[in-house]
């Protein structure tokens, strides 16, 4: 079974401490290609969550049967087979959703996050923990890609939620900057994604450094109030 404490650690690792995109810097290829708007980033992340949870639980259940020497080919086999099965099942049973998510599922094959989590977590931990790890790593990816996509979209074309009408036909994209905004092409191109991702990593490190500073500088007198910053 799994304790509340364990879930909290796994969640904290996935969402913040070992965030796939801004700490492990994994899966840059789909990240750069897809995050031209927030909706695409969220959709890719949702597809990745499903595949990661499934591949983690499969590898964790089979981990005792996989010889150490050939674990990588076996992991790749499992991940590739699961991605294909998910693709087929989506196409057959959830066709409406498939039309939206479908193009993102094959992209997951180029995403090394799945293999990284299988190798570093699922191969050493029981199935339940591994499932949670897959889901929370995916959620960490989801918020990062959503924020990155939203920034690129806003800077690049001045809109927010572009492409949402593909998912929910009734909702229209929001034009945040005036119509006359000329657009900023760099933000929409891969170099812009690199620069903004760099800014996010810097922000994350700054937050961590500040938290560490605070923890070190314990107040000598508990009653003393620090200026809020």
């Amino acid at each position: 079974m799994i304790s509340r404490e364990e879930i909290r650690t796994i969640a904290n690792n996935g969402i913040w401490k070992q965030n796939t995109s801004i700490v492990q810097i994994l899966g840059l290829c789909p990240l750069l290609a897809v995050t031209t708007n927030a909706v695409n980033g969220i959709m890719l992340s949702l597809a990745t969550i499903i595949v990661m949870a499934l591949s983690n639980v499969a590898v964790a259940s089979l981990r005792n049967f996989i010889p150490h020497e050939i674990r990588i080919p076996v992991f790749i086999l499992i991940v590739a087979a699961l991605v294909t099965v998910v693709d087929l099942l989506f196409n057959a049973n959830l066709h409406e959703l498939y039309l939206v998510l479908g193009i993102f599922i094959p992209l997951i094959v180029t995403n090394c996050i799945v293999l990284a989590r299988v190798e570093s977590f699922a191969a050493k931990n029981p199935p339940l923990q591994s499932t949670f790890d897959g889901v929370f790593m995916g959620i960490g990816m989801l918020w990062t890609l959503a924020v990155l996509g939203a920034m690129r979209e806003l800077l690049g074309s001045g809109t927010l939620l572009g492409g949402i009408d593909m998912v929910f036909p009734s909702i229209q994209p929001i034009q945040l900057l005036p119509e006359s905004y000329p657009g900023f092409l760099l933000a929409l191109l891969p170099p812009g994604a690199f620069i903004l991702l760099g800014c996010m990593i810097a922000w994350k490190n700054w937050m961590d450094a500040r938290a560490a500073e605070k923890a070190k500088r314990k107040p000598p007198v508990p009653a003393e109030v620090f200026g809020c910053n």
Partner: protein
Amino acid sequence: MTANPRTFTAPGMAARTAAILFVFVIIFTALLSGAYQWTKPAIEASAAEEKMKLVDEVLPRSEYDNKLLEDTIALPATAELGLAEPSKLYIARRAGQPVAMIFEAVAPDGYAGKIRLIVAVRNDGAVAGVRATQHKETPGLGDYIEVKKDKNKQRPWITQFTGLSLADVGEREWRVKKDGGRIDYHAGATVTPRAVTKAVIKAVLWANAQRDRLYATPSKGARP
């Protein structure tokens, strides 16, 4: 990684790993082919449904009662239709009698390459409907040939062809207005509508010339 009391020689170890890898490959290949077989009918059904959605746009379902997607004639590459590769022609029948045919046509001279169309022509030579299925025309300028992109929702540009027949409208009028015909176009993008119009008149001429031969051809799914 269970502790194994036996020690292996190098070849024995290699054979064991190979055997295990082989077992994994068998299991996951079986899983894949199982999933493929199991989902195949549903995937094919939704692909057919997509096709029918397109057909519904050019010919209302109330006008025929046969299984249209199964009632096909194989078309060789046809220069008159701009088709460089073999294609399929669907025959719509009502009570066994053909009422219209639906086929693909390609306008080779779009502003940005080929424009693929689906055309339905009735027995009397009237166009039942035309839709653009694939094109690379300039977004926001020439892409109004696609109903979804056309800003005129009441009467999208491509519906002008609906009901048009050579019996009522002479061949010379099947041109955009700029060339002296009667087909509207949007200023600033004449190449695209001209290409589509040319492809449609060619398709209608071809259909009129070939109708008797095609209706006489036994089709794949026709009832005896």
